[in-house]
């Protein structure tokens, strides 16, 4: 596959490095030094020029390219690059944007801006952060279909409400499907009458809100709910997006921002979040606001140094979990080494997401369960699939028993899979498949 990457910053070069082994990669960047450096460091073709120019894209071989990734640090440039590339033919375009507004627009109208796949750096980072702090009861959480669907694995404890019930009795969440239980290391496909016992692990697939709600019934003591306390320090766009994602899950965080004007802006945009105007590194203040009792502190200022300081201060005050945003990728390990629980680098997260997207063929995404005993796979249904054009009940009868349809998304909307749901070509389906059924299922769907 021939891939053109426009913008050779941290994200672009990261993607280039990941793809160089298996694909023909052409990198376009306006900066001559970057281009020169890249020519020597990676096995890629580096071209100097502006990616919004049709002739530059022509030089990069847009005519033969299968995919174009616009990953400069400027949103508008990335959109313009994709739009320009689309004028030359049917190249698959991927744009990286920071501003989640573009993502909203794109989600509402597929193909907007000439973009086929869009990744919002800040939103992606925010979702990563929320996943880390939001479901401490979960032993594993993986996003599918760009975060619309979550697969989560929970430990069922004695105190858990669902312990001792059957799957049917526990399945009270609209957007949630029980996929399987892990019992003594064995994967058991969840059927209506399967009992759930303490000590089992439950694997569920559903929309993030339902998974969050489910998490509360599984582990009420450790899962944050409305009363739980999450503190975000720093009103950067990532801080804002994190608060927004938390609000979407019904969690009201506290957000500390030093700049009064930005604070006001955030307070107006986040009705469910308590915004406070103060210096987040002021220990007196943090103590006065009982930040020590918070379940998690997220350091999301625009300065890495401050984020480190805030995380360490919070840790020192006794906060259980600290998450820091690190813009400079090479510091991630250092952060975690000195005591920050999780360090998240937005560019790395973005590059990973894009690479994951480009690498999978028919399988859009996958996740391994209990050492390959089962896989959760995301596929795009085509006309030839055994699932296409008929109710799930019918198609399931023909498939082996080790498969569960966890979630369906149509366009950007979540569809709850029920027996009479008809799967249409173009839908994304998240399947839970036991290892022994895998090859049969994959060839059928």
């Amino acid at each position: 596959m021939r891939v053109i990457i426009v913008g050779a910053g941290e994200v672009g070069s990261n993607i280039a490095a990941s793809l160089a082994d298996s694909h023909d990669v052409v990198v376009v960047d306006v900066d001559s030094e970057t281009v020169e450096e890249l020519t020597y460091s990676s096995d890629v073709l580096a071209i100097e020029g502006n990616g919004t120019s049709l002739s530059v894209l022509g030089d990069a071989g847009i005519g033969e390219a299968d995919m174009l990734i616009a990953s400069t640090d400027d949103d508008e440039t990335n959109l313009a690059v994709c739009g320009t590339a689309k004028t030359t033919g049917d190249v698959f375009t991927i744009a990286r944007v920071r501003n989640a507004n573009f993502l909203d627009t794109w989600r509402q109208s597929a193909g907007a801006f000439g973009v086929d796949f869009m990744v919002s750096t800040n939103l992606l980072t925010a979702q990563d952060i929320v996943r880390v702090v939001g479901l401490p009861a979960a032993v594993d959480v993986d996003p599918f279909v760009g975060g619309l669907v979550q697969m989560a694995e929970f430990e069922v404890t004695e105190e858990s409400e669902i312990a001792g019930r059957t799957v049917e009795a526990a399945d009270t969440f609209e957007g949630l499907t029980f996929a399987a239980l892990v019992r003594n290391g064995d994967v058991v496909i969840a059927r209506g009458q399967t009992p759930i016992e303490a000590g089992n692990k439950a694997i569920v697939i559903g929309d993030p809100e339902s998974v969050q709600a489910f998490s509360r019934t599984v582990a009420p003591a450790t899962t944050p709910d409305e009363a739980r306390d999450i503190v975000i320090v720093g009103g950067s766009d990532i801080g804002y997006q994190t608060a927004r994602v938390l609000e979407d899950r019904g969690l009201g965080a506290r957000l500390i921002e030093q700049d009064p004007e930005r604070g006001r802006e955030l307070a107006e945009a986040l009705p469910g979040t308590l915004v406070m105007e103060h210096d987040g590194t002021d220990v007196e203040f943090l103590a006065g606001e009982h930040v020590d009792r918070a379940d998690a502190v997220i350091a999301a200022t625009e300065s890495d140094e401050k984020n480190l300081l805030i995380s360490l201060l919070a840790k020192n005050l006794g906060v259980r979990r600290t998450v820091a945003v690190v813009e400079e990728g090479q510091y991630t390990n250092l952060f975690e080494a000195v005591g920050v629980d999780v360090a998240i680098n937005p560019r790395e997260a973005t590059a990973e997401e894009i690479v994951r997207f480009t690498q999978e063929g028919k399988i859009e995404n996958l996740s391994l369960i209990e050492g390959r005993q089962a896989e959760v796979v995301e596929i795009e249904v085509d006309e030839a699939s055994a699932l296409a054009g008929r109710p799930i009940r019918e198609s399931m009868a023909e498939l082996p028993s080790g498969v569960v349809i966890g979630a369906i998304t149509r366009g950007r909307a979540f569809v709850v899979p029920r027996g009479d749901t008809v799967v249409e070509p173009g839908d994304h389906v998240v399947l839970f498949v036991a290892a022994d059924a895998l090859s049969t299922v994959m060839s059928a769907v």
Partner: protein
Amino acid sequence: MSVRVDWRVSCRLVGTILKWLWVPLLLPLGLALYDGTRLLPFLAPMVGTVAVGFGLERLTDERDLRTREAFLMVALSWLSIALVGATPFVLAGEGVLGEPVNALFESMSGVTTTGATIIVDFERHSRAVLMWRAVLQWMGGLGILVLATAILSQLSVGGAQLMETETQTQDVNKLTPRISETAALLWKLYIGLTGLQVAVLYGLHLLGLAPEMTLYDAVAHAFTTISTAGFSPRGESIVAFSPAVQWAIVPFMAVGATSFVLIYFALQGNLDRVRDSDEFRFYVGILASFSLAVGGVLLVDGGPYTNLEAIARHSLFQVVSIVTTTGYASTDFNTWSSGAKHLLFVCMFIGGMAGSTTCSIKTLRWLVVTKAFRRDLFTAASPSAIRPVRLSGSVVDEETIRDIYAYTLVSLIFFIVATIFVVVDASRVGLAVTEFEAMGAAAATFFNVGPAFGIAGPLESYDPFPRSTKLAMTFLMWIGRIEIIPVLVLLTPSYWRS
């Protein structure tokens, strides 16, 4: 010294309104013709207002209205319409209305949709004169200014300016890109609701449920219900009609005091807008809780009623009537216990929703004041918290909150000063007025409610008050209706000086 205000522009626009005032005069004229009563009281002001209107229009060619001129125009137009409205009363010379101060009081009470009447003996007045009171209120209901805006569609910028001055709720809530279209839409809605009420009231008559409700009564009451105004051609107000009529009038008063923008959306089938409106829920909550409270008091102290239906009907009717500033009476609430009367007194200060025909402080302001105060309590304990005040999800800016606090405070000060004036002026002439009655009368005129308690009670008349008090009350009604600010601005010397 040059003048900063181009008063000629304001007068020109007032003239444009005046030259159209012959149209509403047609209705009482027609009725006078039909009844065979004198035509001159209506013909003369028709000629006069058109002549003055054209005269004022000749003052200048300039039509663009700016903020300063808008204030003057708003204040002047209500005053001049009240003056025109008073002439038929003076010329007809029936009973106490023949006296010019009384006529001006009655006319101002009409256009400001107050509903406080000077009339003592309703039998002495011709149907045409009584209908003219109702027409004045109907015009005043949605605001002569909205009508004016529709006519003055050539005012591109000034139109929005005018509506803003009129509604005082910061955003105009334009329903259409053109202000003149919005105004036309509001008037269609208004006419539609009035027509519906006529049909309902007269329908009840045809069904035999309201023997007293003639077509004339149905029209006159519809005019003064939707406009939340409260003049009735009957001395006994709504007491004169059957319980069916009283029940039927309640929802129309409530609708008249509901934001017309919301009604518009509801008619469009957009019920989410209604459900999501914090102010609407607050307004309905106020009506419900005060009705229950009054009903509870009447139930406990026995009240003058024997059955539960009557208690429910009168408590609901009176609360809705006073909160919406309509001022109709379904019963003589003067005879109620002190507790029930005090609850009604509190209702005078509430008012209906912003963007409706109602007066008083309005639920929007009370809701913002309540929310802002709750926020302030929170930030007192948590000084670094930033908590915007939200209304139906959107943020109310701090400047608006300050304006609303100021407005509410100024209103209460005006009310206190007015009360003192009434007490002092009444005792000067030896009129026995208790403090509660004085407070009631001051609130009823300033907040454009209409009837109060005691000598200004629902079935009484404002006639016994001395002439000076009547003039003061006329002033109160005027500034109360245009929400004080335009008049206060005019009274500021710097407004006039450069």
